[in-house]
């Protein structure tokens, strides 16, 4: 009996190996080769037949498949989102240079640098096809916020105004040649969080303005952030936005202090270039 059983097992495993070999070429470069590993594991279980109730096994197999699908999808979205964050951060640090260098040239370059981000959004849009937006929202919210920060900063440098939500979405649509973004959208929360972060960037930018003697620009930024912050004040904010609002108010106070110093020193020597130690004023 026992030898028989052993033989059977050997036969089975050799059959499996054969199958595996046949499978290999097809799946060798497949991104989802997790699934194959899974199947092997399941086959081993079948041999040992540890399940008293085969129904439970098949139930969990289908659960496993579903969990893997969701997790893989989430992982891919997180990856795109992280890439968006990195690219956006680079655009932001490029834009910070606009005050020192030729701003038109910098804007041109930043617009170019935004291009690869659009195709990353394309990946996310593809992944969300036939899926639930909010189920995966947490996986890409950080990337979206960072992107909003970058484009709103660019928009401010170019036009001196706050970017409307539509102007954030349209370039994505246009560059991908899509009629609609499918399930994808930018939620009002992400928009709010993104433009809250903008205030921090503008604060840094304004210190650059002082050093380069563009005082008017500082006052403009100060007004801009002030009206943004009072706009938020009217809204019924949720927890996330509220905590970022505090950061925004900190930035506002710093810029106000900066503008105050400019006024004071300018009044002493109206016609002279003043020297302001930026670090001194910011903290």
């Amino acid at each position, binding site marked *: 009996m026992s030898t028989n059983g052993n033989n059977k097992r050997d036969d089975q495993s050799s059959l499996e190996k054969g199958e595996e070999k046949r499978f290999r070429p097809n799946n060798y470069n497949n991104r989802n080769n997790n699934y194959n590993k899974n199947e092997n594991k399941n086959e081993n279980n079948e041999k040992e037949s540890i399940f008293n109730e085969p129904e*439970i096994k098949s*139930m*969990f197999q289908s659960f496993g498949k579903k969990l893997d699908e969701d997790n893989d999808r989430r992982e891919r979205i997180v990856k795109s989102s992280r890439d968006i964050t990195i690219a956006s951060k680079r655009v932001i640090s490029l834009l910070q240079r606009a005050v020192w260098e030729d701003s038109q040239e910098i804007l041109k370059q930043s617009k170019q640098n935004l291009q690869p981000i659009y195709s990353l959004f394309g990946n996310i849009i593809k992944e969300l096809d036939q899926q*639930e937006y*909010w189920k995966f929202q947490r996986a890409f919210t950080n990337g979206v916020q960072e992107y909003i920060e970058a484009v709103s900063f660019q928009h401010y440098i170019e036009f001196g105004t706050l970017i409307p939500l539509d102007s954030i979405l349209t370039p994505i649509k246009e560059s991908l040649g899509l009629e609609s973004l499918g399930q994808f959208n930018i939620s009002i929360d992400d928009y709010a969080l993104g433009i809250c972060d903008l205030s921090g960037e503008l604060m840094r930018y304004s210190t650059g303005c002082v050093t380069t003697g563009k005082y008017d620009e500082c006052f403009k930024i100060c007004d801009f952030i002030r009206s943004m912050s009072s*706009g938020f004040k009217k809204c019924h904010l949720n927890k996330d936005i509220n905590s970022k609002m505090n950061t925004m108010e900190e930035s506002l106070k710093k810029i106000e202090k900066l503008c105050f110093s400019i006024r004071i020193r300018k009044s002493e020597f109206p016609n002279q270039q003043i020297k302001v130690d930026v670090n001194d004023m910011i903290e």
Partner: protein
Amino acid sequence: MENLFEPFTEELEQDFQLRQNIKEIMTKIEPIDRKLSQMVQTYHQVNSTVTYQQLLDEIQPLKPQIDQLKLLIKPVLYYKYRDYWKFSITQISFSLIFSYWVEKKTLLKIDQVQLILGLDENKPGSFSLELEDYLIALCNLSNELSRYCLNCVIKQDYETPSLISKFISDLFAGFRLLNLKNDIIRKRYDSMKYDLKRIEEVVYDISVRNLIKK
């Protein structure tokens, strides 16, 4: 700038209102969840008379509340607000699954639970019992059954512990098939082996004393 904030103000206000409404509905769902949990506790008593049917009767008021939620929330937003009802729905599902097992000695499947609770099949835009919640409910089940196992012996019921042992080892083997991430299910699953150990010890204790009828 002013008018940029207008749609914004409106949407955030709506969001706030919606959250208030959901919270209100939850205050009606939570007592049901507590009631069921309490009924599950009575199963452990020596002369318990709770039946699965009683649990089903208790959840009758749940359906209108869930219908209310469905009316209130746009399907696209179910996932956004899911955290509000996740815990209660998991807890209610667990109570039903436990009671069903004790009575019928088989597992109440996810689609059966969905049907009972008046939830829809899991697909985009449907108000459904999430797989994650069902799995957590199963972890709760394993934990509760490990306790029930002891109490069966106290009741001099020597047959059920072996059935529990078989069932939980199946369940544990099932969880092993899943590639779990480092999340809550993973943590709960990790503690499942202690449940299994406890159950096996009970089965051992009664079998060495020849209390299981052959």
